[in-house]
């Protein structure tokens, strides 16, 4: 049976997680620009693990795709996925009424 107390804790943490995503997006963009696949895989892997845990399944989905594309050395797909992720993060921040650089 779900524990409401735990889910309240997760809800309280969502805001700071979304804020941290902008930093991760920047790091990912930087890694993609120089085709640092190890870094791309690591960031994709972390997003895959954390997104849905915070209640953002789409973040996990995109993270998994970025990890896979990184492992296959498919830079152009990574670029496309980063754009997708960027849009998603903006939308989520908007939904949470958070300025991107706050």
């Amino acid at each position: 049976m779900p524990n409401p107390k735990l889910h309240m804790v997760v809800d309280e943490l969502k805001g700071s997680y979304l804020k941290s995503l902008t930093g991760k997006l920047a790091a990912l963009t930087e890694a993609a620009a120089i085709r640092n696949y190890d870094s791309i895989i690591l960031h994709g892997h972390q997003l895959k693990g954390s997104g849905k845990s915070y209640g953002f399944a789409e973040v996990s989905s995109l993270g998994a795709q970025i990890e896979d594309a990184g492992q296959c050395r498919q830079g152009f797909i990574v670029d496309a996925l980063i754009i997708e992720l960027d849009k998603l993060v903006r939308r989520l921040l908007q939904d949470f009424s958070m300025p991107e650089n706050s």
Partner: protein
Amino acid sequence: MTEDRPLLLVANDDRAMLDLTTAQIRERGFRSVLAAGDGEETIELTRLRRPDLVISDVSMPRVDGFQICRILKSPLFPGSENIPVILTSATYRDVIAEQVARNSRAFAYLQQPHEPETLFRLIDLALGQSEPEVGDRHLLRYLGTILIVDDDPDIVALLEHTLTAEGWSVLTASSVAEARLRVEDFPVQLVLLDYTIPDGNGLELLCWIKRQRPEAVVIMVTANSNEDVLIDLIKNGADDYIRKPFDPDDVSLACRNALNKYNFLRIHEQFQEKIEKLRSVTDYLDLVINLSQEAIFSCDLFGRVKIWNKGAERMYGFSAEEIIGNVVDDYLDPPDFKRKSPDVMKILKQRGGSLIETEIMRRKKSGEIFPVYATYSAIVSTEGEYIGFSVIERDVTPVRALETERIRSARLRAITQTAVTANDQINTPLGVILGYSQLLQKTIPGLSPEHAAALEIIQQQVLKIKGIMNKLKLMSDPIVKNYSIEGVTMLDLTQSR
């Protein structure tokens, strides 16, 4: 009249500790503090006064702190289930006690000695006067200490907050090096270990943790969906795994299961240690009992033999198989022996549990009757009930022989002393008799041949007596014990009395 709230109830059977704790709490500003000297009084006061918090010692006679907790939380005590109970103990300082406290639904378990401030902080938390903070985790370490090893700060933050909210004491590490330090420095019970770590890999760290702290339960947390990897982790000692992304409820459940496993293993381990200790003590006692030259045995209230050592086997000739379970009186008592085992129990109760018999007669399997020195001790159960008696018996036949010899020696000394005295006393008159008889022989003119022969016989007899007296004097020398007169020893002389 309304009572000042909050009302606290302190329970301790140690009067000094009870007074101290009560005074400290009053000093802290709590005006209404009740004191109970035992578990029953605690229950009664709780029923009548409905305190807001109970602080109870665990080790109290009849109703202990754990039982107080369970009673207050039971349906038999409606309305008291929400009264928090802080348990304190100087006796129980292990994981079993914490587990029992947890199962008894205590608010916290505090080991003594502790700082007053620690108790005050727990009181504040229990009364809801302040919210738990990170620093309080060790006080409320109901669910043990957990180490989160993950390089993703978002995952660490999520796990740390959710598990702290659950009551865990949480430590974190973002690298292998940091994780090693934590494991070395803290009594970690559970590790949530990320498979992918920048300065190493989860598998290597898993193996290291299992070597370093084998009792710790390790749950692998991984976004890796490769089944072979997971199997490999389990093969290398991982107790469970959680897949990322995860649901906090699943993490909570996995951690609780892991803690149960940890506690079960620790309890099992502690039982094993206690059993081993007990076994070594029992083996040692067996050795002591069986190597004893004395007969050692124990009986129940009816005299049925429970323990029969090798010494008893040697002394009486009955083997343990023969006698255990049978009434000892039927085997060892001579036919005319009146006192039976129930009488022994009565005497032991009257005399406070022990009885020493300097000499009673016993019967061997061969039928021989012989004297023993016996010490009886009552066996009393932990509840104070008499459940039987133990006996140590020593064959005193050799002692008796020595005593007889001692008596003979004393007699011998007396006789030799008499001989010395007699020699001194008799020699003089004998000399006189001899002298006068010789004088008569020489001075009486015309002594008839019959009278001369009579005087000759007197002199010969006197000389014979002197000879015997001289020999007696020689024998009175303590060194010459076996001197004999025509095959007669001094021992024979003394025995002939």
